[in-house]
């Protein structure tokens, strides 16, 4: 059933999503999408403030670390004083970035479902995949730490499993189903067995059986979806977007890998395979080496403790040292800027896809940011966040959202859910959406 057939891969149901240069204009605005791009370790103080801002908040010039984002300054909102009052730290902060809750390691609880999973529950039944959870493969210490690798939570105790493999992500979205030994009859049988198992086990275990059943149902649904798509026209998808089925394995080059993953999210949104997705650009305490960037030495986490140049912070490696704080901070900023460059690449891709009523970017709400503020101070205040995309005409982009006091990220999550059509009035600790998305703050 899940085995792939044939090597010639096409995206068979994409004709409905043809760029408008090829197909007739769809009068209806395409549906809104929501995306989340997480990066760890915070940023250096001062690197998130634009150089020049108009009186009404419009962005005039970003700063030197953000210069890759300069071409997109009309498509983004830069946050200031955004915080997560209940979650902090490399582990707890990561796990609760999208839940607005607080984390408990002993109970394995993120305090609630995450915003992407709540959206998926409401809008996901109409798409091939309810949501897409992707991560860059971890490197170094903490690569298998649960909280540091989990931003998406189906419920407070159930983190969504994330995929790190471009090929399998692609296949889940675009490959046709084929027949394996497990067919529809088998699915019926195991459904039946799960139900009788449910009677056999105790009350406390019902949830685990439900988890099994839901996983099975998700696979079943995806198969049915794929089934419906096969046989549809394979017309001219090639002009629309250049994207080949990724090769097996993880690309060696970090930039190639990251851009492939970003492409997959763009492709998922554009093709309609899913409307909500998240990508962890690294795990919550990444100690990856970025020495492929000119002039950068040491691990990301070590660099994030930029005010300590002793060479003795937790992830310092003993061979790299810094003469001055500003030298170490520059390296830290260079790592941040490198990520901005990848983010700019993704924004460019999304902007170039015309959906008739604006670009794909115009019809998306993207959150890009971290769960730590200043990386050295480890704070949950003044988080580096950028809200990108036009929200289907519901966001006034291109401004600096300079809140004077701490302003909860949960308000952004609530605003996104409401725009995505989720009937909610409150989320985590807030009961009103972020007003700054349309108004001057």
């Amino acid at each position, binding site marked *: 059933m*899940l085995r792939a057939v044939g090597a010639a891969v096409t995206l068979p149901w994409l004709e409905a999503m043809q760029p408008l240069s090829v197909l007739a204009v769809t009068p209806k605005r395409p549906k809104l999408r929501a995306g989340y791009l997480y990066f760890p370790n915070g940023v250096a103080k001062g690197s998130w403030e634009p150089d020049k801002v108009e009186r009404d908040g419009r962005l005039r010039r970003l700063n030197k670390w953000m210069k890759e984002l300069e071409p997109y300054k009309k498509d983004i909102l830069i946050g200031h004083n955004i915080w997560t009052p209940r979650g902090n*730290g*490399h582990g707890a902060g990561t796990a609760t970035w999208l839940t607005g809750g607080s*984390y*408990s*390691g*002993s*109970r*394995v609880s993120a305090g609630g479902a995450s915003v992407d999973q709540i959206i998926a529950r409401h809008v996901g039944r109409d798409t091939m995949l309810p949501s897409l*959870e992707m991560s860059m493969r*971890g490197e*170094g*210490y903490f*690569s*298998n*730490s*649960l*909280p540091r690798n*989990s931003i998406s939570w189906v419920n407070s105790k*159930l*983190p969504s*499993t*994330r*995929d*790190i493999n471009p090929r*399998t992500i692609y296949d889940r979205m675009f490959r046709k189903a084929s027949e394996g*030994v*497990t*067919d529809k*009859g*088998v699915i019926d*049988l*195991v459904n*039946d*067995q799960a139900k*009788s*198992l449910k009677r*056999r*086990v*105790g*009350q*406390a*275990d019902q949830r*685990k*059986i439900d*988890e*099994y059943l839901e*996983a099975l149902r*998700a*696979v079943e649904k*995806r198969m049915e979806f794929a089934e419906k798509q096969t046989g549809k026209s394979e017309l001219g998808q090639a002009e629309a977007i250049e994207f080949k089925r990724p090769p097996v394995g993880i690309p060696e080059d970090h930039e190639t890998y990251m851009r492939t993953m970003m492409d997959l999210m763009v492709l998922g949104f554009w093709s309609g395979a899913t409307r909500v997705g998240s990508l962890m650009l690294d795990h919550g305490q990444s100690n990856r080496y970025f020495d492929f960037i000119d002039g950068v030495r040491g691990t990301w986490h070590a660099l994030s403790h930029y005010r*300590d140049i*002793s060479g*003795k*912070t*937790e*992830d*310092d*490696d*003993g061979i790299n040292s810094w003469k001055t704080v500003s030298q170490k901070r520059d390296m830290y900023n260079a790592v941040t800027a490198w990520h901005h460059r990848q983010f700019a690449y993704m924004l460019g891709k999304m902007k170039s896809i015309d959906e008739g009523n604006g670009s794909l970017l115009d019809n998306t709400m993207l959150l890009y940011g971290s769960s730590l503020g200043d990386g050295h101070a480890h704070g949950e205040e003044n988080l580096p966040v950028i809200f990108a995309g036009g929200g289907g005409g519901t966001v006034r982009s291109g401004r600096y959202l300079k809140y004077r006091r701490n302003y909860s990220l949960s308000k952004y999550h609530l605003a996104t859910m409401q725009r995505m059509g989720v009937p909610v009035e409150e989320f985590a600790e807030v009961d009103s959406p972020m007003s700054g998305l349309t108004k001057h703050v």
Partner: protein
Amino acid sequence: MGLIRGINRSRGTWLALCLIFVGLAKGLAAEVDGVALMESYCLDCHDGETQKGEVNLEAALEAKPLVKNLDLWKTVISRVENGDMPPKKKDQPSSREKKALLEWLDHEVVQFDYSTVEDPGYEPVRRLTHIEFSNTIRDLLGLDMNLVADFPIDLSGKSGFDNSANTLFLQPILMERYLGAIDKAVEAAAPLKVAPNKKSPVFVAWPSDEGEEPEAARKIINRFLLRAFRRPPTKHEEGEVRTIYDRSREKGESFAMGMRRALGAALVSPAFLLKSEQAKDTDESYRVDEYELASRLSYFLWASMPDDELFRLAAEKRLAKPDVLARQVTRMLADPKSDTLGSVFAAQWLGFDALGVRVRLDPIDNPWCTDTLMAAMKKESAMGFASLIRDNKPLTELIQSKTTYVNEELAKFYKLKGVKGDEMRLVAHTDKRRYGLFGQASVLAVTSSPYRTSPIRRGEWILDSLLGTPPPPPPPDAGELDEDIEDNRKLTFRQKLEMHSKDPRCYSCHREMDPLGFSLENYDWFGRWRTKSRGRSIDSKGRLPSGTEFEGPIGLREVIVDEKLDDLARQVTRKMLSYALGRQLEYYDEPAVRKILSAFKKDGHRMQTLLREVCASYPFHFRKNPVNADSEKNKTVADNG
């Protein structure tokens, strides 16, 4: 109301209530004092509303017995003892009050009488870990294939073992991988063109003509379901799987194809993928049945399914008999499948499973650090631990063993001569300093930063992971190394750390942690012996709070064996029981821990005694339905990290 009804319901409850009343009367005066003192000095900030530092002592005070939140209360005791809490700017208890509070806490927490507790806990339903899945498929189908290479990795949380039910999730992505792996497995197990391997554990019958097919199918399916579900299938289950086969045959597919479909269906079933036990509708604790016991045994000792002998004993209802069980444990430990006690249990307990994930070097500057070397380092520690059990050695051998396992590459790394080839083999150390666990590169590397040793991390690893006596978390306002200390470049790292540790609040933990870690300073961050670090001679002398002075790894070994053996034995017991039960231990497991420990000690800490006692323990044979799924609500310490 509830009380009266409770008394009427059973004599057992009445007895329990009496005991509680006696206990209350004994500690009554102390109780009133303690709670009142907590209210005046702690709950201003740590009540349910403020929960300063996310510590809610109000809720913790209500969670009786207090040992339910043992770790939290231990931290409270150490904070109050050291004068960190209440903070200086808040009202301070008089010295008499402080004494009374500490006495009360000691009475309630440290001296708690566990003999009043009788609760075996509950092993929740969980999916198989990837290792268990892989091993089970191997034993069930007689296949040696790597089916889990592209599975999303098992993440780990607080318990430290990846077989803990609360971190084993089954999400759509994994379900898809399961289906793919199962497809591959049944294809390999039931080839279409040729008769299956004679040794196949699946095809206990094979039809020579069409007439024999129905009977062969019945035999194969019946036996397969018993083994795949690890219990006899119900008639209904058997009928369903049989239908899959029949339908395939009706479509005109071959016998082998029909078998593939039937086996595949059984493997996708939750009865295979999930490890579950039958619930009884009772508030009392109850025995797990014989088949469940067989699975508990096999997943503990083999990380795989039960074999035919276990199934037979379960069918005869003899497995739970103490003498039969003890013999089975001995038999199972002699089987190479028990290697998982080294490669899974010890690897996760001692942390060396993370090697290779944590330490990844560029191959240009460090050509010596290869994947094969790291694999050999891990294997050395895993095989060493497994052999302690197989050869029934005393626990002290973990620390002192004069032999180890190496291959050519690792032998070269240790400067051992005369070892050729990739095979790991037993060798005797020629260098005394390398004896035992502390000489093994695997644990020395995982407790270091890349390129740099971390005496604190090593000290903490010894205290926390190895001995189970973690230092309390640093006081809330403890900084990292002071900047002016750091700036003083003339000092050695050790001198700087010592200055930092002189701060009395830091000192209480560091005086224990640091000497342990510094005694291993002669091993560099990858476990290579050195006498100098950055041009300075290494000082590996230390002095414990007990006054004992020691030096280097040899001294450390003596300290552990002479002064810390009870801690080590207790820790290995707790970890082993936690791994055996697939859950974190709770306060009510303490009576079982103590019972195992006393038998273990009486036998000179021989490892097989530990294993047998764990398998004979109360929680290993019994379970009790939890009051409600969220009964752990009262755990209040947040873990920011």
